[in-house]
């Protein structure tokens, strides 16, 4: 996999440096822009895998940068907002941001979301070409028919639940972060108090356990995500 290239448009030099340094430590290439106008130019001129975009910027506001980039490019964009006000978050999505990260945040949180976004944007083809059947132990999934069987017993799942189980199974033994699952299954960014993913997992687990599966196979990794073993 090529080294992902990340553009950071953030006017706080200290924060920008810290983020860049930590990202480089994790093996990413980064480029920093402290000013909105310049940030927009480099976003349009170069090709990036991800753009971290602050909302409050000198010379050009984050939302207008987002708008102008979106007219020509579909580069994943993560907005960084300082206000935390719901209104601003909502505005961010409407204009096509892929995720938002409210300040204050910590690096772990940021990393999880960056990985989720990159993973989603780099593997869209793979998801289509994947086989339409999955068989793990007694569990059998048929994607074209949206059917799930456990030990030949049919398990009724909603399309979202099916997609969730599919992603977990396709990445068996791997902890799937909540941020990634939100993006790939629910098609929306993760926020701290959103419980819908947990509720879907709980429902899927309940149905599978009713069909006879051991509850330990669909694990909750507290503070990390979910894992199918």
């Amino acid at each position: 996999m090529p080294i992902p290239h990340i553009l950071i448009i953030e006017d706080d030099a200290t924060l920008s440096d810290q983020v860049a340094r930590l990202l480089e430590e994790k093996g990413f290439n980064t480029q920093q822009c402290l000013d909105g106008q310049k940030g927009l130019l480099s976003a349009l001129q170069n090709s990036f895998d991800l753009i971290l975009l602050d909302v409050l910027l000198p010379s050009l506001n984050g939302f207008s940068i987002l708008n102008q980039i979106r007219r020509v490019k579909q580069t994943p964009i993560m907005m960084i907002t300082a206000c935390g006000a719901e209104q601003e978050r909502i505005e961010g999505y409407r204009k096509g941001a892929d995720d938002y990260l409210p300040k204050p945040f910590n690096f772990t949180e940021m990393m999880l979301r960056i990985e989720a976004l990159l993973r989603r944007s780099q593997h869209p083809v793979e998801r289509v070409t994947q086989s339409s059947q999955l068989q793990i132990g007694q569990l059998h999934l048929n994607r074209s028919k949206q059917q799930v069987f456990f030990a030949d017993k049919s398990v009724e799942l909603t399309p979202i639940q099916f997609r969730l189980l599919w992603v977990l199974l396709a990445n068996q033994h791997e902890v799937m972060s909540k941020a990634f699952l939100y993006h790939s299954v629910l098609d929306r960014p993760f926020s701290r108090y959103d419980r819908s993913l947990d509720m879907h997992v709980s429902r899927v687990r309940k149905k599978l356990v009713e069909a006879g599966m051991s509850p330990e196979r669909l694990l909750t990794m507290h503070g990390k995500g979910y894992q199918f073993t």
Partner: protein
Amino acid sequence: MKNTLFWRLCAFIAFGTVLLFWALSWLTNHTETSMSFIDADHQQQLLDYGKQAERILRYEGEASLASWLQDLQQKEDTWAAVVRSNITPFADSSLPNQYIERFQLGRSVEWKIHLYFEENPTMEIPFSDASSHLLIRLPQRMRPGAFLIYAKVFLQIALPLILLSILSFVLYQDVMTPLRRLENATNAFSEGKLDVRVSPYLSVRNDELTRLAATFDHMAERISKLIYNQRQLLADLSHELRTPLTRIDMAVDFVEQNINPKQALERLRSEASTMRNLVEDTLTLAWLNNESPRLNNDDFDLVELLDVICEDARFEYPDRRLTSVLPENVLITHSSQIALGQAIENIIRNALRHTPTESEVNVSFANCNNQYTLIVRDQGTGVPDEMLSDIFKPFFRVDKARSSDSRLAPTQNNHGFGLGLALAHRQIAAVGGTIKALNYYSEKGHRAGLQIIISIPH
């Protein structure tokens, strides 16, 4: 009654104006009529001329009368004549007596004069024999109504002008007095006097303007409360941030002096996380306070949500028992899973924190009176009854409220209520529900713990 001001204005302007013009018209007619009569002295003068003429005719003869008439005409600058009237019907016709009695050659002196005729009328003064008459064109000096033009100007222009001006002034005062009060109040409010209200000054009225005043008062009440709460929140927040900030400074010193740096770094991370949560919760609280949003976009299963929250809470507090008695599923519509989830999570976490280890927190559910009721009971120390509603205020502390030199013996788990319950209160309000806290008591009457009762509409 609705639109009182409208009806009052209607009464004043419509009825008042119609009444005014009717009165003016009547007054004008009346004045004109009363001014049309010949002055009493002049009437007498004319009658005297008649008597004089009759006397001269009787005692001095026609020649004298002729010269007298000549003099009279000159004196009064008019014409005068004496005539004999003798109506003789012919061609075998006859006149009723009534007509003959009333027949006149000119106007009687008591009759009113038509002032709209330029020319003066001819007056008739009958002699006592009733067949001879003195006819005289009314002398100009005796013509009545010399002041009619002034009377008309006064009645038709000046008087309505004055009366309508007075009416306007009265109406203006009636409307402007409360508006001026409102203006003064608005000025005072914008200068920072947040306790100014208008309604008490308008207690005698009850109309659209009092409604406006009430609306202003309502707005002033809400804004002043918001500002007060905001100030309080800001003060509390900066106070609450002091502790983690101090700990962070200390931890940095620890790292610098290489005293147990690993633990100090962990401390740094956890204090930063405390501050992060505090700031985020404060922003959410401010948002809920300022906008009072109605969150109603989600439909979900409450039991599923509770299961997920309880599972997390059990993981977080493995040394306390969290039990729940819940039905199979409870569908909630037009609500918000995030708001309700965060609220319940905070309440359960708060209950667990105030419950000693090995003790129990119980979550139970009931469906009655058209609403779902969720009860979270802890086995903590409860809260003094008089403070049961205060615990929903941001950063409220029971110990702080009890004594000013607080935290004399702080317990390990007593973090106060922080923002959790304050947030929960507003989040549950945002989904249309209510929340209250009650102590519950053991059989011996001891306070056995606190129960938080959440009601959610169907």
